[in-house]
């Protein structure tokens, strides 16, 4: 029988809710019928813990006395955006320090979450309402007002695996790719990954409450580069980057266990973000999506050695997670993950506990995301300076 989110929340309140992780659900589906599972299980928790470059934090520093309208803002030497009123800023995870290429916005965010002091330097024009022209001080998460994560693109639905056919080593955001297709890297948690368990985003939309960085957060928009036109396999799984999410959450309550800065050699800074999404088992159709297994999730293998990243083949997460992938030419190649499956499991388990103990309730989305969105590339024009 079909259930509603309100009915599931009532069960959470009564302590009767049945929650399992997506991996457990997939395992159960091997010997229990989908109809029975749809009836018996109320919520399935999904999670991922991977490097998500399109992440940022919004900060309000509080006013200086006498006031300053901040420009040229840096936090530990990392530039933050100056175009948001007097003392608001947004700092992007991938922004790099002027002094140390291995330190960036993600490190600033991580340091603030850890409670560390961060050096704030800013200049101002000096106006009647904001006369101060320069400040150089220290802040931490207790001295500032708002400090929330706002990540424009997280939780990629699927992502192509990467290899490198050239004779040179490639340092990429997909890790170090050895020459002559000697390794393959991949970066999703497979059958545990949030948007692979709800491939058409039937239950996830604006306002969906999620686990973000160790506390609760929210889905606030579709992520950037949101793509619903990617070719799908027979299970509805897009064969590469498809849907994405924009998410928000109170960074003051987050933990550096679930938000970690990262540095990729000759690529730059990124940030590991821990995301967990509860998916209500509304009916048999949702149960069928949630029963997806790594064998049924395909992704393309792209050649990162060549401009345009042409495809060299197709694989499944079952094969990727086995540690060996056979390429179409018969070559057996070592495969390795870039996102942490053990951390994703920890997050899915934690979210399960929160729901079971009644401290986390599900939400119904107030707006669903587009079904006809594709990704454009930049148009290059002559006389581009005009």
């Amino acid at each position, binding site marked *: 029988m079909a259930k509603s989110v309100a009915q599931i929340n009532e069960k959470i309140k009564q302590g009767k809710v049945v929650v399992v992780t997506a991996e457990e659900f997939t395992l159960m589906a091997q010997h229990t019928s989908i109809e029975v599972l749809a009836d018996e299980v109320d919520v399935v928790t999904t999670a991922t813990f991977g490097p998500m470059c399109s992440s940022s934090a919004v900060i309000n520093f509080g006013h200086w006395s006498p006031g300053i309208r901040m420009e040229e803002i840096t936090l530990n030497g990392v530039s933050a955006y100056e175009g948001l009123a007097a003392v608001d800023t947004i700092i992007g995870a991938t922004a790099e320090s002027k002094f140390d290429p291995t330190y960036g916005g993600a490190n600033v965010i991580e340091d603030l979450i850890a409670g560390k002091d961060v050096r704030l330097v800013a200049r101002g024009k000096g106006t009647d309402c904001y006369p101060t022209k320069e400040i150089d001080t220290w802040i931490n998460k207790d001295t500032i007002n708002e400090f929330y994560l706002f990540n424009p693109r997280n939780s990629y639905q699927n992502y192509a695996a990467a290899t490198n056919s050239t004779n040179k080593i490639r340092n990429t955001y997909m890790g*170090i790719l050895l020459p002559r297709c000697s*390794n393959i890297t991949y970066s999703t948690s497979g059958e545990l990954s949030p948007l692979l368990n709800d491939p058409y985003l039937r239950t996830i939309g604006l306002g969906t409450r999620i686990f973000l960085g160790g506390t609760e957060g929210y889905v606030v928009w579709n992520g950037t580069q949101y793509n619903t036109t990617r070719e799908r396999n027979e299970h509805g799984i897009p064969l590469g980057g498809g849907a994405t999410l924009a998410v928000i959450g109170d960074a003051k309550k987050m933990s550096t266990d679930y938000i970690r800065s990262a540095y990729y050699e000759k690529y730059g800074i990124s940030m*590991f973000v821990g995301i967990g999404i509860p998916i209500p088992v509304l009916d048999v159709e949702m149960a069928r999506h949630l029963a997806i297994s790594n064998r049924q999730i395909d992704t393309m293998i792209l050649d990162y050695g060549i401009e345009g990243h042409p495809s060299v083949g197709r694989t499944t997460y079952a094969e990727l997670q086995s540690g060996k992938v056979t390429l179409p030419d018969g070559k057996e190649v070592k495969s390795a*993950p870039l996102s942490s499956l053990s*951390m994703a499991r920890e997050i899915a388990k934690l979210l399960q506990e929160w729901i079971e103990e009644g401290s986390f309730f599900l939400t119904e989305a107030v707006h669903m995301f587009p079904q006809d969105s594709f990704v454009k590339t930049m148009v290059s024009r002559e006389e581009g300076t005009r």
Partner: protein
Amino acid sequence: MKKRYALRFSPTLVEQPLVSKLVRTYDVDINILNADVASGRGGKLIVELSGTQEALSGSVAWLLDSGILVSEMFKELTFQEEGCINCGACTAVCSSRALSMDPQWKLVYDPALCVVCSLCVQACPMQLFEVSNEREA
């Protein structure tokens, strides 16, 4: 006993068959773990010598006499395990299988298998690996 050494050659020494001379003169087994040697340019070998204490110190003395700079590798790779998030990026480049994922997807580091290729130093997004210093032999 087994010890690892870094041997640095000048361009002229590259032309000499030092490794085979060493084996014939002293009762040591030589395992070449890493080699970067080119004619006319000199080079560096990372070797593991096994044999008795006497054979090893004799070998080192002989190598030094031949004009090779010898330093002992006293710590190979250092790994700050507590910062590890078990992402697995390092395992992508570890051909010796010193770094691998266990069935629970936690990283396992087996120093005995490490050949100090140092690719993991660059591969780790948490920067937890370092190739340690050598000390003069």
